């Protein structure tokens, strides 16, 4: 190039006109958009979000397996699993948050445990691959389909999911009372634990073998720790219990004849509780989640080779030739940065990227008929029908109906809570874009069909650690992911269902094999370091015999 520019061509052709010089390389300004790791965003809904004490307690919660329930061997559609679960049916699964969100591996479910599976396993089989918790505090919405607007509300949702840790809010309350009482009381002094939540051993001593309360000396139901419902004297705070699935607008009804099943394995224990007691437990439950969220907010991965390269001024040769070429492709030809933008390499938006619903436990819309638990036929924004395969169209509908939103009674964001009733109005959202830490627009966002098949853009920091990839876990390696994009999506549906319309920016890229390798090298350079003090396993209290 230099030789030519230096003379030959100019002399021969255009001495008068001169030869052009190359356009100044704009790659660096584009790369600089990924520099400048921000502080953890303020979470007004969680008063302890930045509390070291909360993070310390939350860390123990994160690693504690006592909040998990038993194996149900069912998938998200409540179908029996066709592969082995984590434990035998009905046996404790003994998982913690860290089991599927390993903080030493980007906070992701990399193990594919049990082997051969691509979606995550808890008490049953998920419909998606677990997302990473490292750097998750930077996301506006949480979960692949965006169904939660804070880390703590996400934790609240998954803790009682039969495919996740399959726990219950009463179990959480009792475990805290039994093993974390002092730390909890110190962290949440305004929400003291009720006296009835003394200890599990004491509680069990007050019960008959059938789970009812022992009557007092007068043959009466002891109303301080128990209450009489439908002629039975039952504890005010059972050891286990969670709400059944009820449609918005409907209230749970106490019906002791309710049979145990996958979704409500503890019968109507929760629904038969007194409302005031339910509120007390819910408060403990959300505080527990907020402590875990405080810990997750400390899971920050930075100081990656890319960060060091940036700090050094993007000097050629310092990151490695392949990764540097990959960086150029990332912001240039491959246009990855169109969605994986900013220092976190994500845009906090939803996209349909041409990944089909494929996999043993990944549902299709045809598997969710009207009236079933997963229902993709009945569709109304005010009546979530739990259509799992359609991604953001389902998740945002759930967010708009969520009882644990930032404007709910469980939130610490008073300003956001105060205007709860206005949040259904998009005009109000437009006039107050910063309310609820900027989440307000999601609450009244029209649930158009464009959202069908869209899933949230994951951040790419530590991405080399977080496989398998895509919401279905369909790809094992980063190379497969890039090949997917290189072909404009839909590499192989394997009989799966492709829902919605592929994003206009998912186009054939014409990358060569070397360019694909270069992009992989660049993505691998995004693997950072999480403070070892944050990731080292804590000392968790001894197990509680439920």
């Amino acid at each position, binding site marked *: 190039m230099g030789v*030519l520019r230096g003379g030959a061509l100019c002399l*021969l052709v*255009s001495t008068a006109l001169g*030869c*052009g010089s190359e356009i100044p390389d704009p790659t660096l300004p584009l790369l600089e958009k990924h520099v400048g790791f921000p502080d953890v965003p303020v979470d007004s809904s969680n008063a302890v979000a930045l509390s070291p004490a909360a993070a310390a307690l939350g860390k123990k919660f994160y690693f504690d397996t006592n909040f998990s329930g038993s194996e149900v061997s069912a998938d998200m559609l409540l179908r029996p699993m066709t592969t082995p679960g984590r434990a035998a049916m009905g046996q404790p699964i003994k998982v913690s948050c860290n089991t599927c969100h390993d903080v030493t591996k980007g906070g992701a479910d990399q193990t594919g445990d049990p082997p051969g599976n691509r979606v995550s396993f808890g008490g049953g089989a998920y419909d998606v691959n677990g997302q990473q918790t490292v750097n998750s505090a930077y996301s506006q919405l949480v979960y692949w389909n965006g169904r939660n607007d804070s880390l703590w509300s996400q934790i609240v949702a998954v803790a009682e999911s039969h495919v996740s840790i399959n726990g219950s809010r009463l179990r959480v309350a009792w475990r805290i009372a039994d093993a974390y009482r002092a730390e909890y009381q110190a962290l949440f002094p305004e929400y003291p634990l009720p006296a009835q939540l003394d200890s599990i051993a004491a509680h069990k001593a007050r019960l008959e073998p059938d789970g009812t309360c022992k009557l007092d000396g007068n043959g009466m139901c002891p109303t301080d720790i128990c209450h009489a419902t439908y002629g039975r004297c039952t504890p005010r705070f059972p050891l286990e219990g969670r709400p059944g699935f009820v449609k918005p607008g409907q209230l749970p009804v106490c019906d002791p004849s309710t049979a145990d099943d996958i979704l409500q394995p503890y019968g109507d224990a929760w629904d038969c509780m007194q409302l005031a007691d339910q509120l007390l437990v819910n408060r403990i439950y959300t505080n527990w989640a907020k402590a875990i969220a405080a810990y997750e907010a400390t899971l920050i991965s930075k100081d990656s080779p890319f960060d060091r390269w940036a700090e050094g001024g993007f000097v050629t040769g310092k990151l490695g030739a392949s990764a540097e070429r990959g960086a150029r492709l990332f912001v240039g030809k491959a246009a990855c940065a169109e969605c994986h933008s900013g220092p976190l390499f994500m845009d906090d938006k939803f996209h349909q990227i041409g990944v089909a619903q494929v996999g043993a436990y990944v549902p299709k819309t045809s598997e969710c008929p009207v009236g079933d638990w997963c229902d993709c036929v009945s569709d109304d924004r005010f009546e979530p029908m739990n259509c799992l395969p359609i991604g953001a169209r389902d998740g945002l509908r759930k967010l708009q109906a969520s009882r644990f939103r930032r404007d709910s009674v469980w939130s610490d964001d008073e300003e956001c809570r105060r205007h709860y009733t206005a949040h259904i109005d998009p005009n109000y959202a437009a006039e107050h874009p910063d309310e609820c830490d900027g989440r307000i627009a999601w609450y009244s966002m029209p649930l158009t069909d464009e959202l069908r098949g869209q899933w949230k853009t994951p951040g790419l920091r530590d991405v080399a650690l977080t496989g398998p990839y895509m919401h279905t876990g369909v790809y094992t390696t980063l190379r497969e992911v890039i090949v997917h994009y290189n072909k404009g999506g839909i590499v192989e549906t394997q009989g799966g269902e492709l829902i919605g319309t592929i994003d206009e*920016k998912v186009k054939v890229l014409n990358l*060569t*094999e070397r360019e694909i390798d270069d992009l992989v090298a660049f993505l691998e350079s995004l693997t950072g370091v999480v403070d070892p003090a944050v990731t080292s396993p804590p000392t968790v209290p001894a197990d509680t015999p439920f």
Partner: protein
Amino acid sequence: MDHQPVKQLAILLLLTASPALADEPAAPPVEPVPAPEPEPEPAKTDPRLDELTRRLQTLEDELSQVKDDNTYLEEKLQSLLPIAAKLGGYIDAGFFVTDGNGAGTRSDLIGQFYPEYLDKGIPGSWVFMGDPLSTTVNSRGDVADTGESRAIVFDPINSRGKSTFLVNAVNLALFAGLSETASAQVSVDFVPRARDISDVGGVFAGDYVDVKLAYGEWKPKLDDLELSLQAGKFDSVLGFEYRSLESPDRLGITPSLICRYLCGRPIGLKARARLLDNTVIANVAVTNGTHFSEGFTFADETDSNHLKTVAGRLSYLAGGKVELGASGAFGAQDQQTDSGLYQWHVGADVHAEVGDLELTVEYVKGKAKGKTSGMTLAECDDAPCLDYQGAYLLGGYRLTNVFVPYARVDWRDATHESGASFVYISKLVRFTVGLRAEIGTRVIVKAEATLNRELDRIPQFPNDVITTSLVLKL
């Protein structure tokens, strides 16, 4: 056995037999017979006449022999006529060097020059400034490199800005007479190219065959009209440049910037008529799609819709030296399944040959409207839009029997947009100078230099070309 006694007996017998003859009576006297008149002596002739006579006889004999031979050959020829054919072709090899990375476009990565496209949601790396075909290096119209182009991705040379020797093409042309009025013609390029066989998804073609022409032609015998009907894959009917696409025929090396719209070889039916003492030529074609060249991906050999493209050209030859032509085309947009999407093209051309000077001027304008869904910020997302106009002036002067210097000025202004997938903004003027040397009847050597100048908001960037061509006619 002893033969001596036999011999002696034979002699004796002969001696005794002779006196017997003498004893016979004498014969009566015979009347004297007048002596015959002596035959007159032949007239004395001119020896030269004799010689001529002799030679005439020889020639007549030879002519007779040749006639016999010819009759035999005619009979053989008649029997072979259905497969009679003429083979031809050429080898075109060259060397080229380009400025920059060999590509004719650059991305507006940060929306520095055309920010309006970033506002439409098109990634900056997919906003291309310049002309992807401005760095052509041979008569086939191959570019030195396509760079990071998205619409034109066929990159058979992939020079990455390096100079290289190159066999541009090995051409094989076949003409076959089918009958007195019918014939067939085929032209095939064998194109040797590199291929990274380890790159399964690579865009490098490797060696490939390009069937450029394959058509049958029928020329019915008419008294006052010279009519030609063609079917198959034939030359374009638009403009003038298509007449000299092959390396030996083309004055210079590289095609013009508007050749992409004129030089395609579409598939369909074509009629050409010469009228009024060959001063008027009319061409009409019905084809699958446009007459765009195949290297330009807006075109496609097979059709994707039912509406065919109708194209035509009408020209007038003034004074036997200046040809004025006008052409146009209308049809469904290439590569669209919707027959309701239209594409049109108009053009005008002038070609003059005055003494040793040859001049050609062409202008084209056209549009494919495309389709915008309105669902996204980007336009033309349902069907790409193309809006173009361009022109060139080409002049050549036969300096000697060997050397023909030439020069060309090209101009092109086009926008090609396809949703968020890409947009090409081409606004440029191109200057080309070259020298053609014809060495004998079978060897042509050409050298050419091209300077590209970007217009409008497009910044100048290095994309100039020097290329050469050695054409050996087979």
